[in-house]
């Protein structure tokens, strides 16, 4: 259970990225957050694992305050939360397996990780994560030699290797082409359904949001402007979230056929 209580983030320079947000996400949900760039989607996601500190209010994950956590306490919370990024954020010069094993660092003693001697059990977990996203055969390939879609799946495997309760995905398909986007979104959906991992995804393509979001949260100017099921979210709802009429750029399929 993720619980935002009057959460606010004001960046130095005075930008209000989150304004007094109150929101609850129960375990096991697949939530898609939509909104224009700058609406606070990224900030919302990064507030959950403390990568962006709150300037007001609180966020709790399973009852533990992220805002008040420091050091080891914060790292323990983060270890239960996997994260997937728009630009994949892999270390391109090392192997796929080493990237996925990053997800086991939280459970590995420092000396072991410094010399790169992970426990066999942790390597097994990493391999299983790669199998789940279907690229275990690339385990010993340099990440730089993979295509974008494959790199994103490595990113998902890295998050899975943490054995998380929650997965955060910040625009996970924004740098991928449409078929690959659907593949990655289906992977995330499968993980949510099969493993019961709470999954929170930022998207800006409305059709993807409707297809994959069991619940859609609309953000505008750092505020929650819509919270409902994907089925209910029609064009009027999105027009409301975006504060303007919709264009072809807002839809993946249209953007693809241009």
């Amino acid at each position, binding site marked *: 259970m993720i619980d935002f209580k009057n959460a606010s983030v004001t960046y130095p320079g005075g930008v209000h990225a989150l304004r007094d947000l109150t929101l609850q996400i129960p375990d096991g949900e697949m939530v898609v957050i939509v909104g224009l760039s700058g609406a606070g989607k990224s900030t919302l996601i990064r507030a959950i*694992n403390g*990568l962006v500190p709150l300037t007001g209010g609180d966020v709790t994950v399973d009852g533990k305050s992220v805002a008040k956590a420091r050091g080891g306490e914060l*790292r*323990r*919370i*983060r*270890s*239960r*939360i*996997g*994260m997937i*990024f*728009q*630009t*994949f*954020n*892999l*270390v*391109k*010069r*090392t192997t796929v397996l*080493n990237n996925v*094993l*990053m*997800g086991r*660092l*939280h459970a*590995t003693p*420092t000396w072991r*990780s*410094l010399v790169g001697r992970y426990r066999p059990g942790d390597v097994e977990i990493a391999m299983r994560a790669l199998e789940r996203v279907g690229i275990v055969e690339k385990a010993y390939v*340099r990440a*730089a*030699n*993979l*295509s*974008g*879609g*494959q790199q994103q799946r490595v*990113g998902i495997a*890295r998050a899975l290797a*943490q054995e998380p309760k929650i997965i955060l995905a910040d625009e996970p398909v924004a*740098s*991928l*082409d449409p*078929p*690959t986007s659907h593949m990655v979104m289906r992977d995330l959906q499968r993980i949510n359904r099969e493993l019961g991992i709470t999954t929170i995804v930022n998207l800006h393509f409305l059709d993807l949001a409707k297809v994959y979001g069991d619940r859609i949260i609309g953000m505008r100017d750092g505020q929650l402007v819509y919270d409902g099921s994907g089925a209910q979210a029609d064009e009027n709802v999105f027009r409301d979230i975006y504060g303007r009429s919709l264009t072809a750029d807002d839809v993946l399929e249209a953007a693809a056929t241009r």
Partner: protein
Amino acid sequence: MTASVIPLPRRPEAPSRTKRNLTVLATLALLVWALLSVDAELDRLVDLPARLASMFDRMFLPPDWDYFGTAAAAMVASIQMAWIGTLIGAVISLPLGFFGARNVSSGPVSNMVRLFLNAVRAFPELVLAVVVFVPIAGLGPVAGTLAIGVHSVGTLGKLTAEAVEGIDPGPVEAARATGARPLQVQRWGVIPQVLPEVVAFWLYRFEINLRAAAVLGIVGAGGIGQILSNTLEYRRFDKAGMAILIIIVATILIDYISGTVRRRIIEGSGARRIQGDVLEQPELVEVPASPLSERGRAMARVDTDVG
């Protein structure tokens, strides 16, 4: 209908050339002043070819082949000085480089470390050897090795710090997000990104240090430089010729090997990239071309004449 004259926009004035002319004049004046003040006996340039020919004759026609063993052993000692000195520099500079990088260290710490590195770098090996290490360690290769090591710390530390500052911050954020401890974040988020460049710096530094080691012998730090200085002092030009031959061959050989290894390290590291299904968004598809990797590649191309 009369042809109406469209007024053309006024043409710009040609920019003043005064600045440029002054710069040329000043440069010429400096050159003349320098030539006059060094009091060079330019007329001796005339018989330079003859002198060179005579020296070449005495040194290499033929060199003292019996001296090969002694000179080669001294060359090996010089190579060892350079290698150990480089290792000392590499081991000490690596953590200093991390502490000196603003993005992974804190502001005050990185400023202090950089100040220290700049100070160390300001002293050439020769000065370090004569002023610091010969008095401490006595004449011999130990003093030379230490001088090379300390100077290398300065240069390698700065290059490492810059390499670390040029990394892609994405993987670091990803590592932090997994709940990894700070040292683990450095080990798996930063080191794999910079290691190829840093190792290439080390090898390049070894090539430079080899030349420094040869020179250091002249001030009594052993190795091939000492041989050269001794034989020239006793005017045994055939022996000096042998030593010079060995220096040339060994330097070229080591530069070639080291350069090949450096090229492989830099170009083998993610040089090939499959773009595949990534959309044509240059800022996402391309690896951020950090200034360091450019420099790294440039270094991989550096030829043997850079000392």
